[in-house]
């Protein structure tokens, strides 16, 4: 068999819809559950439409204002830049930490994901402290006559910060897919004497496409919705314009109009992603058991690879942590009270664990419908889960205030509502990973199990779920980490007096008490780090047991 034939076998069939799936209509229960989840995710959008309608004829004036268009362009540009750079970095890191003999691979696997745990305002603040015109690096270079470093503010700084704090989205989704990938095809190509490079670009990369796109999508939406980094680094983005409207004029309808433009942009991105994703079947078609892929020897590339990982970790994790420790030290020297109770640790972990479980559980039926029973209905439901993801959290928070005060007053500002809000906000993060790994599970296993007399639910539990574990776990890890640092939802929707690590960091920095923000910030990073470490270790064991 030639190499081309292997590629053909691997892909050509895969490009078609799976005929088996087409013929089988989804069980009505599944459709109802998925549709309910999709509708829940649309609540913020419905609120925005209501508010925007209040603006009446001013609607178009707001949309076409030159200023609106300028900031819109700024956001589009920033999103394009960050998504490209974060995707490239993410693919490289995911591959290096799963498929190569990179020294201390397991350590890098964890630490390269950790920049994601930093709230973007803390991270951006640290970057300014380190790389600002008169930051720590300049102080080090001062003996060499360096008076000030080139300005970090504006587009370059925002690009750097958002890339550093969002590339782990791509690492996590791509790594899950790499783990689920059947090495047989790569083996066949290798046996035909193809170079590792050809194998990577011709076989591996195309197989990773859904997960790369899922990760890239999260990066794009994160960049669009971010407020912390762009405001710290003084880049005039669309979210900043929305915030300024809120802060100064309390003009909710004008802010809603702008937010709807953001939703329109999201839909455009989703459409593009769907076009690029195509409808591929990626599970193993052959017989025999899957096994772990052999490691690629890096050879002379070993040192540059380590340097890349180290560089990313330094900028995205070590520097911010150093700055935090520096604050802590300053506060300790000044004799400030640095720590107040374990309450916030418990609250943060409880909220993040529950949010992870609820969100992954909600993502599963939606992903299942989208992958196994593709069609217009499934597509619509999946899109609605993403629709609000580029919105700044404050809009989602206000939308849920609006709905729950009116229609579920008993739930207002309860822990249950808070979880609901987290799930609404972070559903796409879980959806991306779950969907990508579901693509790698062949329905034939399930058919076989059903043929052996198992009931559908038991098939799902004993066959599908274990195969989905990598995707479920990375979805869970993503939601956990982002919930830990989430701010506006927690501030407005949590039970009164519910303080978390993130709200403590925020309130201390709000009063410029950086020393008091330091201890919770450090605990946040360590806790998320331990958790991600455990999750990734589990993922690893799954593959090699």
């Amino acid at each position, binding site marked *: 068999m030639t190499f081309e034939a292997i590629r053909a076998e691997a892909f050509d069939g895969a490009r078609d819809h799976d005929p088996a799936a087409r013929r089988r209509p989804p069980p009505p229960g599944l459709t109802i559950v998925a549709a309910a989840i999709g509708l829940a995710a649309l609540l913020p959008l419905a609120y925005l439409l209501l508010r925007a309608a209040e603006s009446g004829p001013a609607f178009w004036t707001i949309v076409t204002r030159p200023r609106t268009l300028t900031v819109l362009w700024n956001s589009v540009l920033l999103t394009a830049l960050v998504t490209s750079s974060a995707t490239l970095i993410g693919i490289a890191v995911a591959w290096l930490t799963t498929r190569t003999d990179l020294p201390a691979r397991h350590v890098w696997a964890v630490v390269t994901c950790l920049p994601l745990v930093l709230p973007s305002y803390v991270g951006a603040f640290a970057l300014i402290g380190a790389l600002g015109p008169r930051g720590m690096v300049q102080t080090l270079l001062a003996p060499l006559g360096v008076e000030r470093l080139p300005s970090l503010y504006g587009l370059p700084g925002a690009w750097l910060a958002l890339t550093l704090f969002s590339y782990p989205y791509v690492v996590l989704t791509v790594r899950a897919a790499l783990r689920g990938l059947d090495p047989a095809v790569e083996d066949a190509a290798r046996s035909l004497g193809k170079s590792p490079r050809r194998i990577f670009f011709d076989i591996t990369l195309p197989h990773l496409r859904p997960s790369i796109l899922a990760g890239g999508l999260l990066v794009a939406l994160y960049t669009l919705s971010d407020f912390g980094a762009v405001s710290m680094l003084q880049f005039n983005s669309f979210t*900043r314009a929305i915030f300024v409207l809120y802060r*100064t004029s309390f003009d909710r309808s004008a802010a809603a109009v702008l937010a709807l433009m953001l939703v329109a942009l999201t839909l455009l991105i989703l459409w593009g992603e769907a076009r690029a994703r195509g409808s591929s079947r990626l599970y193993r078609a052959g017989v025999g058991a899957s096994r772990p892929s052999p490691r690629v020897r890096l050879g002379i590339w070993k040192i540059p690879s380590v340097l890349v990982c180290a560089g990313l970790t330094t900028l995205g994790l070590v520097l911010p942590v150093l700055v935090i420790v520096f604050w802590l030290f300053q506060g300790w020297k000044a004799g400030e009270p640095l720590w107040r109770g374990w309450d916030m640790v418990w609250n943060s972990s*409880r909220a993040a664990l529950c949010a992870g479980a609820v969100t992954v559980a909600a993502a599963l039926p939606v992903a299942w419908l989208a992958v196994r029973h593709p069609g217009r209905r499934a597509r619509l439901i999946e899109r609605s889960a993403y629709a609000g993801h580029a919105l700044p959290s404050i809009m989602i928070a206000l939308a849920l205030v609006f709905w729950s005060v009116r229609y579920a007053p008993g739930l207002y500002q*309860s822990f249950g509502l808070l979880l609901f809000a987290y799930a609404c906000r972070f559903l796409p993060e879980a959806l991306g990973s779950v969907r990508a790994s579901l693509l790698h599970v062949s329905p034939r296993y399930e058919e076989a199990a059903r043929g052996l007399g198992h009931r559908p639910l038991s098939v799902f539990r004993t066959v599908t779920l274990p195969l989905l574990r990598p995707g479920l776990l990375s979805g869970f890890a993503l939601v956990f980490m982002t919930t830990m640092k989430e701010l506006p939802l927690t501030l407005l929707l949590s039970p009164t007096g519910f303080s978390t690590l993130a709200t403590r960091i925020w309130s201390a920095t709000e009063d410029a008490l950086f020393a008091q923000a330091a201890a919770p910030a450090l605990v946040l990073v360590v806790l998320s780090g331990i958790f991600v470490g455990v999750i990734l270790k589990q993922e690893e064991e799954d593959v090699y047991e």
Partner: protein
Amino acid sequence: MKTKFTNTLFRRLLPVALIAGALGSIAMNDAPSSPLVVYCGRGEELIRPLFEQFQQQSGMAVEVRYGGTAELAATILEEGDRSPADVFFAQDAGALGALKKAGRLATLDESLLERVPATYRSPEGSWVGISGRARVVVYNTDRLKEADLPDDMDGFTDPAWKGRIGWAPENGSFQAFVTALRVREGDEKALAWLKGIQANEPRVFAKNSAIVAAVAAGEIDAGFVNHYYLFGARKTNPDIAAENYYFPRQHAGTLVNVAGAGVLASSDNQEAARSLVAFLLSPDAQAYFARETSEYPLVEDVPLREDIPALNAVPVLEIDLNLLDDLPGTLELIHAAGVL
């Protein structure tokens, strides 16, 4: 074999435990509360001890939701009549004005209002100022002396200041200053000032505290801030190379703004809510603001910090703060000048 078993056990149980935990937490929710609920747009670190003190003195339970002033105001507007909040403690008068306009605030008793000079409260009595914040210029003491600084804000439009100043045009206090400038000298003058500063390529900051940090680090020479941020920065580093500058001449640049409180019209806890506002205006609480947050107490005869000039020792803009409610107009001007 054993590890494999525990592993599997762990795996089977983990999801179950998580979901049980999630549901358990939902069930644990307490019933709708009767304690006094405060929405507080001021930072928790500095304000919490005051609420604790009130709780002890009055024996009333207080629940406080901390958040950004604008975000909490927007939340109250969305909540409408059903708002659980009894008292709103805001960072600036603008947010209180917005709630007043929407009819969300109750009228306070004269006995409360008269403790504070008329300029620092709502004329209809719907909110009252609690503490004062002076607009000042913070400057780097290594690079500048007080004599190098201009007599008024206009002085900073001089090209000599190109690339040396910082401001926070998104900040509410800054916008209140621009509004004061418009009220005093007209939109044209205000626009000219904004353009003049813009021509000097000022560094833009999101927060006042960041301006103080940048001044202390020597990234910029001077910045437009509220007076108390310097003292916040000195708490962690007493030796920073920065000092506040009060203009020698009364003009919009010597505005004194307030943080204030209002009682929600929808509150069914009116009496308790009013007693909290009264507490915030008590000599004890006022002295706390002077001491801990380095702000100006608004009630007479409360001692100041030694390192802060008394308001009667420096020029203060005489203006009715209620005239500063045209923020949309100010925002338009800021946009027109190409600042935001």
